[in-house]
Every structure is written in C-alpha cells, then in structure tokens.
C-alpha cells in the first residue's frame, strides 16, 4: 500500500515560538525578501503561525494556529492550474512542479488557506548566506508559485534508505523540518494509511477538526484543540 502522508497540529501545545517557520525557511531555501518588500506583502512563509486574540485587555487569551499547505485531497489549486504545475501525487501530496509553472497565480486565488506564495522577484542570498542553501531543494526563480511540500526531499531520502536496508519505514522516523524543530512536539507527521501511526491516532481524536472543512477540499491536516471553554478552564 502506498504511503498517504498526513499531519496533526496540536493547537493546545503550540506556544507560538515560530521555530517551525524558521526551520522551514532554512530547510526549503525560502528566500527572505527584506523588511521593505515584506511590508508590501511579498514575504514567503510556507508555514505561518496565526495569532488570534480573544477578549479585551487585560483579560485576553491568545490562540495560535500554525497554518501550512493542507495537502488537500480535492485541492482547488490543482484543478485551476492550466499547465499541471500543481498536481496530485500517488502519496496524496499536493505537488508543485516549479519548472512547469507559468505564473498565472490562479492556484493562489483558489486556495482558501492562502498558503501559496509567488516569487515576485528573483531571490537573492547575500554572501555568505548562499552557503547555507540546502542542496536537496531547488532554488525557485522569478515568476513562479511555491508552497509547502511536506519536505518531499526528506520523504524521498527516507524511502531510499528504507529500500536499501530492506525494511519498512518506522513511524516517527521521518519528520519534516517544522515537526523536528517544534519544542513542544505540537506537530506530528506520518502515514495516514497506517492505522496505528501516531498521526492516524491523532486524526481520530475527539479534539481533532479540519480547517475550513466546509469548503470541501478534504484537507489532510488535523488540528487538535479543546473545542469549548469548560469548567476546568475556569479553575
């Protein structure tokens, strides 16, 4: 049975430290665009931590929600791409073929989560930052869309190792950069086709829900959060 990669994000564990965002930038060669362009909305964060503040000062609670590509099974971004740059893989990944993208940016509109990013300019890495580029990940040029890949380069590498050693992939052996960097282990990654994997068990959790499930995109990331204010919170 092929793998079916999925993720669970525990919003109750998330402290909003954004280590995942930093790790994602480093792993995937995501360029930083500088304060000026960032202020103009050109920043690219494949992963972002959304902050929602509830209540009035000083009686406030902050809620964090890490948002990344939900790797939807019925992804609207795939249907609208005229050149198949955005397409579905056998392992359920929502892949982006950079070389095939002509930059209509239609996928970015169709995505309800706004997790697709456009290279408005050619990326620049000032020396010596060019030396920290990850050799396993291609550097994207001007005019194309990019997004979270579930660290597909790590998936490929792990599968190669497993095949060479003639064994099955152990649950938890493979982690994307965000999950690896998370200090509170709020992000769990794994194979949804294995009913005993941690991510499968968390996906069945009563605390679990999908983000914007009503759009019908069938996202593969489960968000875990206590649903309502209950008595224990009051104490």
């Amino acid at each position, binding site marked *: 049975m092929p793998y079916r990669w999925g993720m669970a994000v525990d919003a109750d564990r998330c402290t909003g430290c954004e280590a995942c965002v930093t790790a994602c930038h480093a792993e995937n060669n995501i360029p930083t665009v500088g304060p000026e362009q960032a202020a103009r909305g050109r920043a690219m964060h494949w992963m972002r931590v959304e902050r929602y503040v509830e209540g009035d000062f000083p009686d406030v609670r902050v809620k964090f929600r890490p948002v990344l590509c939900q790797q939807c099974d019925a992804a609207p971004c795939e249907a609208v791409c*005229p050149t198949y740059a955005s397409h579905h893989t056998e392992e359920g990944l929502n892949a982006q073929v950079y070389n*095939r*993208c002509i930059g209509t940016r*239609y996928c970015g*509109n169709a995505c*309800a989560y706004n997790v697709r990013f456009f290279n408005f300019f050619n990326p620049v890495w000032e020396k010596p930052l060019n030396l920290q580029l990850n050799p396993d990940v291609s550097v994207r040029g001007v005019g194309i869309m990019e997004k979270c890949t579930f660290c597909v380069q790590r998936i490929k590498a792990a599968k190669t190792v497993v095949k060479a050693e003639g064994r099955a992939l152990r649950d938890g052996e493979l982690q994307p950069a965000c999950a690896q960097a998370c200090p509170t282990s709020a992000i769990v990654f794994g194979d949804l086709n294995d009913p005993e994997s941690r991510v499968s068990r968390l996906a069945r959790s009563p605390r679990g829900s999908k983000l914007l499930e009503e759009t019908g995109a069938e996202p593969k990331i489960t968000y875990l959060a206590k649903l309502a204010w209950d008595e224990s919170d009051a104490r």
Partner: protein
Amino acid sequence: MNRTLDRSLADDLVRPLFHTSVWFYGLALALGTVVASGLAAWGYQIWNGIGVTGKRWPVFWGFYITNFVFWIGISHAGTLISAILRLVNARWRRPVTRCAEVITVFALMIGAMFPLIHLGRPWLFFWMAPYPSSRDLWPNFRSPLVWDFFAINTYLLGSLLFLVLPMIPDFALVRDRSTGLRRRIYGALALGWQGTTKQWHRLEAAMQIMAIAILPVAVSVHTIVSFDFSMAPVPMWHSTIFGPYFVAGAIFSGIAALIVAMAVLRRALKLEAYLHPMHFENLGKLLLLMSLLWVYFVFAERLTVWYGNEHSEMSVFWTHQTGNYAPLFWTMVACNFLIPFPILALRKLRTIPGVVFASVTVLIGMWLERYLIVVPSLGHKALPYSWGTYGPEPIEIVIMASTFGAMALLYTLFARFVPIISIWEMKVGQHPHRHALPEEDEEAAGLWRVRP
C-alpha cells in the same frame, strides 16, 4: 438619380482613404508614443518581475485581470449588437455595424494581451496551448484559464470573419477607384470580387451564417470569463449568477464604448450626414435597458449574499457597502445607474451629448465593477489573518493607459485605411424597394460590376 446619389455617398465615405490630413499624422504619432511607453513598461516588468506591480500576497490578481475583463466586455459591443441588428433587419443599423464590429476585434486583441502581461513567466505562455511537446503534456482542460484560451481565440477568429466579410465589396470599390500599389493591395484584399450575382448570394449566405453562429460564441465567451472567477472557492466569486451577470455587463459597457466611438468618428470624419441623432437615441435606449438589467443583477446578487449571511462572503459584502471599497462601490452605482438612468430615460436629455456623457460614466462604472469583483474578494478570504489589500503601482497605470492608446491608434488607422461605414450596405439602404440583393433589378446590379 439613384446612381448620382450612390456616387456622392461613395465619394464621401472613401474620402478619408485618399486624403490624409496633418491631424492624422499628429494623432498617430501621439498615440504611437503612448503605446510605445506601454510596451517599454511591459519590457521593464518582464525584466524585473511582477514585483514591480502592486500585486502582493494574497491579492495575486489586480489591474491586469481587471483590464482583461473590461476589454473583453467592451468587445461585446460590436459583433453581438451588429449580429442582432442584422438578424432582426433593423434598417438603422447600416451606418453602425462596421464601426461596432471593429471595436470587437480590436478590444479582443487588447483584452487577450492582458493575461499574457499578467503572467509571471510570459515567455512560456504557449504552454496553455495543446501542441505536441516532447513531454507529452497537454494543458489541463479542467482549468477555466484553458477554456478562456479557446473561447477567446474562437471569438476573435469569428469576429474577424464577421468584420472582414462585409468589407469585401468595399475593398473592391476602393480598388476600382485607385491606381498603382494601392490598387494592388486593395485588389488582393477584395479577393477577386466582381459583384456577380453568385458572389452576392454567397456573401449574403456567409453573413447570415456568421450572424447566427457568432451569437452563442459571444455569450459563451463572457460566460467563460466569468467562470475564471465563479469556479474558484473565493467569497462572492463562487456564484451561479456570474455567467449572465458578466454577459449583461459586457453588453452594457460594449454599447457605451460603441456610442463614444461613434461620436468621435462623427466629429472627426464629419459623418453628420450618416450618423444621425436617431442612431444615438436608439443605442441610448438599448443602453437604458442594459443599465436596468445591470442594476437588477447587482441587486439579485447582493440580496442573495446578504440573506445567506455566510461569514467570509459577508466580510466582502460589507467592505463593498460600507468599508474600504465603499467609495468605489457607490461611484460605480452612480456611474452605471443613478447618472445614466435619468439622462437616458428622459427624451429631452437623450440627445447626442447626453447619450455620450452617459456612456462615458457607464465605461467608468463598468471598469470599477470589474475592479471590485477582482480585488476585494481576494483580500477577504476565509482566514482573517491572511487578509490583505492591493493598490496599483505606476507601471500598471501606464500599461493600462497604453491599451486605451492602442485602441485609439488601431481605430484611427482602421478609419484611415478602410471605409468606416459600409458603403455597399448604405447603398442598399438608399434603395428601399430593393432588399438585400442588388440582382433583383438588372440596372442596380450593374452598379456593382467593375468599371472598365
């Protein structure tokens, strides 16, 4: 007597082809400069990247797509109106049809440029087309952009045929009146037209077929343009009303563009004897009808959204009604309905200046409508954390202005090289006893034969 009348009519209408005023060169140079500045701006954008425009995350579409929809809308003036008027055999159509049809062709050419200007990597635009590539990859036929590609090309081809067919007898007329190189060029364009009965029959049949065939194509084109929006799960885009709403809006703005173009031609080429106040009044009535239809669609769309009370849709709804985009929204309502409605409804105000003024406001209002469809929805999707805004950068304004310049330039050149009013159709109109085919009486048929 009819013969002399015909002769003076033809003299009048081919005059711009044979006598060029200094104004023409000045105008062509000025407009050419505007177009060149737009091309330079586009070159600058290709060199540097889309980042030189105002587009940003998450508003990935902006001015270019607004202009794309606007120009495709303008293109509905010509062919559609002309085809309907031909099919119902409206007598007053004769001086109007050609200047309408040519708007379609030029507006489509300009409109079709915008998706290319908009591309992140425009040099790869041909990947939208199905061609035998080494990768064995075809375009994704599930994508509305690919439907667009085919719809617009079909419409462009059809409109071009529809424009060129009735030009053939006029090319022959110019050929017969000229000498040297000009005679050779127009001779080639006239495709060997001799004015025989058989040729008239074929022309008439071809035009009848085209007039019928072009109607569903025109309706489908703007429906498919609306599908670019309504197929995406974006608040206030994902709506079943978009197809007819876009078609109505397209015809609305198209008629307005036609009226403005006719007024300019009438003044510039001194066509007062051909374009009468009656033509403006009739088109003004049509504009009035479309204005009412437009208001009806806007009301129906907004009432449904408001009643549905869905979160993300309501955030877009209120940003239109009372929020950041309210000034633009209410300007649009004023320009498309509040101002033109009384002007077009009251006979006293439905004069040429009145109708032209109303048309100008409609053009502004319809441009704003497209902007308000594209931008606020993208900035107000379901997750409030990722809301955003958009404003154009100078480069987008330059490119937009240059397309208006391109329209004016193409139109000026066209009026310089082709009789802008169909001469043979006018002649047919001047012989009311004769319907369409001149061979009904031998003497008239002779008029169309080549003079030795």
